[in-house]
C-alpha cells in the first residue's frame, strides 16, 4: 500500500490509514452462523512508532462488543499510567492489499488530544510491516513482511 500527501500535511498529521475494526473473525463466523449481529467500524488510525502496542478508544470496544482478554499496564510520555483492558479484535485495511489481522490484541485507552484518530497502530503491528516514511516527498509505503 502506498499513498502520498503533501510534505507539510504529513508533518502535521503523521502517517495515518483507514482501518476496519470489529470483533475477531472466529467470533464473527461462529456468531453469524447462529444469527448474532456484530458492528464493524471504519476509523482513522495513526501509524505510531512510539506506541509499543496498538491502542483504540474505549468507545470502539463497547460499540463493537470486543471480548476482553487481559489487562495491560500503559505509561504515556506525559506520565499518565494505569492498567487498561485489552481486547481481541479483527483489523483490516479497506481498499488495500495489506493483509488484515483476524485476531489481534488491542488496548482500550483514551487517545487524548487526538480527536481525529481513534486508533494508534503500534509496533506490535509494525513488527509485521515494512514501513517507508519519505518526509521530503510526503510518500508513505507499507508492505507486509513475508
Amino acid at each position, binding site marked *: 500500500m502506498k499513498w502520498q500527501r503533501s510534505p507539510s500535511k504529513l508533518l502535521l498529521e503523521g502517517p495515518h490509514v483507514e482501518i476496519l475494526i470489529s470483533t*475477531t473473525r*472466529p*467470533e464473527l463466523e*461462529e*456468531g453469524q452462523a447462529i444469527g*448474532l449481529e456484530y458492528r464493524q467500524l471504519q476509523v482513522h488510525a495513526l501509524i*505510531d512508532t*512510539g*506506541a*509499543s*502496542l496498538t*491502542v483504540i478508544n474505549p468507545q470502539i470496544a463497547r460499540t463493537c462488543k470486543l*471480548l*476482553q*482478554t*487481559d*489487562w*495491560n*499496564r*500503559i*505509561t*504515556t*510520555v506525559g506520565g499518565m*499510567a494505569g492498567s487498561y*483492558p485489552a481486547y*481481541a479484535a479483527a483489523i483490516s485495511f479497506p481498499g488495500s492489499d495489506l493483509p488484515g*489481522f*483476524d*485476531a*489481534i*490484541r488491542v*488496548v482500550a*485507552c483514551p487517545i487524548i488530544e487526538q480527536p481525529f484518530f481513534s486508533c*494508534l497502530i*503500534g509496533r506490535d503491528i509494525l513488527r509485521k510491516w515494512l514501513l517507508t516514511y519519505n518526509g521530503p516527498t510526503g510518500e508513505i509505503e507499507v508492505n507486509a513482511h513475508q
Partner: protein
Amino acid sequence: MAEENPLEEELRVFEAHRSEWLLTHTGEFVVIVGPKVVGFHADYESAFKAGLSAAGLGRSFLLRQVWAKEPVYLIY
C-alpha cells in the same frame, strides 16, 4: 462485581502458577477460562481460538504471555 473486574478469577490462577510456568512456558500465551488452564500457545491468534473454543461466544477469558514481570507498555 464480575462486570467491574472481569478476569479476576483467571488472574488469580495466573499468579498462582506464574513461577512454575516460567520454567517451561516463558514467552508463550496461556489461556485461562475461569479456574481452568486451557493450554499454552506460541502466538496470540491460535491462543485466542483455543480460548474461544473453551469459553464459548461472549465469555471473557484470560490470554496472557508468561513473563516474570508484567511489561509496562509505553505510548508516545
